[in-house]
């Protein structure tokens, strides 16, 4: 297939490198440096998709970021990505793309029937139609809309590409490398400022690449190239192409998306696909340019109708003709520039200018070249279905209300120019209140809100000379403030053609008897008539009109449609545009891939993984791990073909009969030192702490100020002014912040220091009736008898030459100890325990057995201390001191907390002693009661009691204190279970707590 719309010469593409690609299954050829759009147009392909609502044929409208139509599904390196703009996607060898929103094919699309039903799909159609009957939503409407809607398909595969985040600081961030970006970057860089210059396109230079100007005796393009090469050599400058600054956030932080590899067939090894830059800039220069506005006329969405600037870009950058018989329809001089380019390349365009008798250098040039121009003429409607074949044109009266006789002229494309809209998105995102500039009929940034300055076309300045002057000065002044350098640069001589005033005209009236659709929003199919309906129905706020009609809500976010929509609303409402106002600009400016936002934080990298020093031993011994916060803990140690249930039962049983060892390194540990340490503990915990002797541990419960239990754990007095606090694994970080809060802000007079030592100590819990015997072997030189080391006692010792701390504390309810050694010695300690415990039948146990042991013992943990329970609820009220004040005490006399039927922890046993009770189930009195069945409580934790060999659960039950012996039902609608149960004491094993003291 030949590229019959490609010019023989010209453009910035590399004609030496031919690339093949596929569109909708058909193979085509383009050149290196093409976009998918330019390559398709070169091959004469103008039908690329179907519109969102009416499935009307869609071609190309722009040549870049503003493109509303040419959205494709891209296939690259065995992956697929939706919502890719063909005008932005660079061509690579083997590229494959398909049309979206059409079925079965773009040429024959069944959904196009909507086009003929369009009278039934006016503004707000979805709101009005799918409201009733309610039951129809799931069965009929939603499946229908799902099938009809969408702009492509997201891949369901894991994205193997790598996305990076980068944090950067700079003096000046410059968004856009057109004339203003280049000039300001150059001036600032020469002053020694650290500059980042970002360009979203592959080529630097912006409008200089397509305009016929001369700067310092060079063409605009050559000048841009020379500035860029100089900037690239400077160590204080970062120059980035394919990088879109898409968001302006608080305190001058901007986010930029760099497409590192999207233009390549395959991402290079060790390269990311995309990189997200978080840039904190001292000053921001917004040189984002402007986007050409469409003119509104009948069937103005037909493929072949496109922005005149895009037609010029396809010509000058890609050497591609968008048509061989072009019509240029303009209200300003920009259309002439496009027509002149056509003419220079041997094509004869016709210009229709809505103005009466405009005069300027550019118009003179067009006349001199012999281009046919019709003043006071407009396009009334485009004709042709899948491609423009002709245009109905007419003379228009000076007041723009009356059309003359309609004449049909042949053409294969209509290039429109309705003047220019400054790209003010970034400025607006920064909080800048924009203002309406009457001369250009558009909004420009107002007073700077953050440290941002908008320059050039983005600021509504459309002459090159003024743009360059402003930008050199801005770059110089802003950098001078930062670097104190004052290197003057000479201002180049600029040659450009002068333009005349544009016409304040943008929408062609409908001819009598015709009901052509005149589109405003090309992607969401919002036409003039839709806005009229919305206004008739009483919508006034532009924000409401936008949402009701979906104007500007497509993936292009109304880059080409917003202002025309505003003009229409202001015309109908007879208001001026600034009174109508514009909708809020929000980041991102262009769609950003989810991968880029997530960055490297996927899978295992989504959070840090903490491992105990004994982790390698657990791995070698068939531990099955479980996530405990960010820690990986052994859940059980699998022997043979054991299941979780079998293994945890074995491990728990072994603790009750012999001795087990559990890795408790993950417990939070806080070192507390200072003369007022005891006083701090006394204020933080609910029980008394002032009289704890040195060498003793005590269990404590701490509350939040609202009286809810925050955490529990033991704290040991190591020496006079030194305590070792333990917290639960989950609350470790919060407890430290909590202590710091009170020490730094509330009671700064307390002389105490706190520091986390969680990672400094490795811990092993040794539990079971034979644990003392094991301890004797581990510490042969210490007296670990019940007298030498009583319950809640503490001892410092050496474990075969290694410094060790021994705590006699128990979570399992058995005779138990916790041994801590410095982390580096953790594995040594663990191996010693296993080695010396062999003859005592020691077995490691994981978190599942640990839970079993504590549940049947009635010891509370996170599932009971769930942020909703007070001490009473968890039977910890015995630890509340009546004598002293502490954090949260004042809340405890709240009415609900003291109510006589307050919830309390109980034990739950199924009547059949067989059926396991799902955690989270509800307790009810009557299983047959009609819904909503009144909930009396919930199951907080369940296990298989190894002591009694039947299921046992803990529950938080209303009036639990008086419910022991009651028969209730456990209901789990999720598991579809109803289990008759008996309420028993939460202390199911050793209710008197004799074992821990034995």
């Amino acid at each position: 297939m030949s590229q019959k719309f490609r010019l023989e010469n010209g453009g910035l593409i590399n004609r030496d490198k031919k690339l093949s690609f596929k569109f909708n299954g058909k193979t085509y050829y383009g050149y290196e440096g093409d976009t998918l759009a330019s390559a398709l147009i070169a091959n004469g392909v103008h039908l690329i998709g179907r519109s969102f609502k009416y499935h009307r044929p869609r071609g190309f409208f722009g040549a870049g970021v503003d493109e509303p139509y040419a959205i494709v599904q891209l296939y690259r390196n065995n992956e697929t990505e939706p919502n890719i703009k063909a005008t932005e996607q660079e061509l690579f060898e083997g590229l494959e793309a398909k049309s979206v929103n059409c079925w079965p094919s773009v040429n024959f699309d069944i959904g196009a029937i909507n086009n003929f039903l369009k009278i039934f799909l006016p503004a707000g159609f979805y709101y009005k139609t799918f409201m009733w009957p309610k039951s129809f939503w799931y069965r009929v409407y939603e499946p229908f809309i799902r099938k009809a809607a969408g702009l492509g398909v997201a891949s369901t595969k894991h994205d193997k590409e790598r996305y990076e985040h980068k944090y950067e600081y700079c003096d000046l961030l410059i968004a856009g490398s057109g004339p203003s970006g280049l000039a300001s970057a150059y001036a600032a860089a020469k002053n020694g400022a650290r500059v980042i210059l970002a360009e979203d396109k592959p080529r630097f230079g912006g409008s200089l690449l397509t305009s016929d100007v001369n700067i310092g005796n060079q063409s605009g393009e050559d000048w841009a190239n020379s500035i860029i090469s100089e900037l690239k050599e400077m160590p204080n400058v970062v120059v980035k192409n394919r990088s879109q600054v898409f968001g302006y956030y608080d305190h001058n932080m901007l986010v930029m998306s760099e497409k590192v590899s999207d233009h390549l067939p395959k991402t290079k090894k060790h390269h990311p696909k995309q990189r997200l830059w978080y840039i904190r800039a001292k000053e921001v220069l917004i040189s984002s340019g402007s986007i050409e506005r469409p003119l509104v006329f009948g069937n103005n969405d037909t493929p072949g109708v496109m922005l005149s600037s895009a037609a010029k870009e396809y010509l000058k950058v890609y050497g591609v003709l968008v048509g061989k018989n072009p019509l240029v329809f303009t209200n300003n001089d920009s259309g002439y520039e496009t027509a002149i380019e056509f003419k220079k390349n041997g094509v004869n365009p016709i210009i229709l200018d809505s103005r009466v008798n405009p005069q300027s250098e550019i118009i003179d040039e067009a006349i001199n070249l012999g281009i046919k121009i019709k003043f006071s003429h407009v396009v009334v409607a485009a004709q042709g279905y899948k491609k423009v074949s002709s245009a109905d044109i007419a003379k228009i009266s000076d007041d723009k209300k009356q059309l003359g006789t309609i004449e049909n002229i042949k053409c294969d494309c209509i290039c429109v120019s309705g003047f220019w809209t400054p790209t003010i998105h970034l400025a607006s995102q920064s909080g800048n209140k924009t203002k309406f500039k009457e001369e250009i009929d558009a909004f420009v940034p107002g007073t700077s809100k953050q440290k941002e300055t908008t320059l050039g076309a983005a600021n509504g300045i459309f002459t090159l000379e003024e743009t360059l002057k402003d930008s050199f000065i801005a770059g110089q002044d802003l950098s001078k403030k930062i670097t104190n350098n004052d290197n003057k640069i000479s201002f180049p001589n600029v040659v450009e053609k002068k333009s005349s005033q544009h016409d304040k005209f943008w929408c062609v009236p409908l001819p009598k008897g015709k009901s052509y659709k005149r589109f405003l929003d090309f992607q969401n199919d919002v036409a003039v008539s839709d806005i009229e309906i919305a206004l008739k129905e009483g919508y006034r706020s532009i924000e409401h009109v936008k949402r009701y009609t979906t104007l500007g809500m497509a993936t292009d976010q109304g880059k080409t449609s917003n202002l025309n929509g505003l003009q229409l609303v202001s015309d109908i409402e007879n208001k001026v545009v600034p009174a109508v106002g514009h909708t809020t600009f929000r980041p991102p400016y262009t769609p950003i891939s989810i991968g880029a936002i997530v960055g490297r934080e996927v899978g295992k990298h989504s959070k840090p993984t903490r491992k105990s020093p004994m982790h390698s031993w657990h791995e070698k011994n068939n531990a099955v791990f479980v996530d405990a916060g960010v820690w990986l803990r052994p859940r059980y140690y699998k022997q043979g073909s054991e299941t979780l249930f079998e293994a945890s039962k074995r491990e728990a049983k072994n603790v009750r009969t012999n001795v087990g060892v559990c890795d408790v390194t993950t417990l939070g540990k806080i070192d507390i030192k200072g003369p007022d340490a005891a006083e701090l503990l006394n204020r933080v915990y609910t029980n008394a702490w002032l009289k704890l002797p040195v060498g003793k541990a005590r269990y404590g419960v701490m509350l939040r100020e609202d009286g809810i239990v925050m955490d529990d754990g033991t704290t040991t007095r190591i020496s006079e002014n030194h305590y070792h606090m333990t917290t639960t694994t989950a609350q470790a970080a919060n407890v430290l912040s909590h202590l710091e809060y009170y020490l730094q802000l509330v009671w700064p007079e307390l002389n105490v220091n706190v520091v986390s030592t969680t990672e400094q100590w490795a811990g092993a819990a040794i539990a079971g009736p034979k644990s003392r015997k094991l301890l004797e072997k581990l510490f042969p030189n210490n007296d670990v008898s019940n007298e030498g080391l009583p319950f809640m006692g503490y001892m410092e010792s050496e474990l075969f030459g290694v410094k060790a701390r021994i705590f006699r504390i128990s979570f399992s309810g058995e005779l138990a100890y916790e041994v801590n050694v410095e982390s580096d010695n953790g594995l040594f300690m663990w191996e010693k325990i296993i080695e010396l415990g062999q003859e005592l039948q020691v077995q490691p146990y994981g978190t599942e057995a640990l839970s079993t042991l504590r549940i049947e013992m009635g010891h509370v943990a996170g599932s009971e201390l769930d942020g909703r329970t007070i001490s009473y609820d968890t039977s910890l009220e015995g630890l509340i001191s009546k004598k002293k004040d502490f954090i949260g005490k004042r809340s405890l006399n709240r009415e609900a907390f003291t109510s006589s039927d307050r919830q309390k922890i109980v034990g739950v046993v199924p009547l059949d002693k067989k059926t396991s009770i799902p955690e989270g189930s509800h307790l009810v009195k009557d299983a047959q009661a009609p819904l909503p069945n009144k909930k009396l409580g919930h199951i907080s934790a369940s296990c298989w009691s190894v002591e009694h060999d039947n299921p046992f659960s803990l529950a938080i039950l209303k009036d639990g204190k008086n419910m022991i012996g009651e028969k209730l039902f456990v209901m789990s609608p999720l598991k579809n279970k109803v289990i008759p149960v008996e309420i028993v004491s939460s202390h199911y094993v050793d209710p008197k707590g004799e074992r821990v003291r034995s």
Partner: protein
Amino acid sequence: MLHIKCPHCGMRSQNEFSYGGDASVKRPELNKEISDEEWDNFVYNRKSLRGKHLELWQHLFGCRQWIKVERDTATHEIFNTYKADEEIT
């Protein structure tokens, strides 16, 4: 993302800090008889101001100090930051 000047460490990004609420709230003294209303005001009732607000932040992934930040809740402008024990004039 805010840029907060830690009075101990200098300018840092918001993601090093955690928010701690209204800094003007003062905890009632221990062992002091106070009304339910006063206690409620301390524990629960906050003004949710629009405009200048003195708030607490902790430099969690930094020096771990609690600091006071004077910030506009609508514009996010930060006027000043103070150490926990600094007199605010």
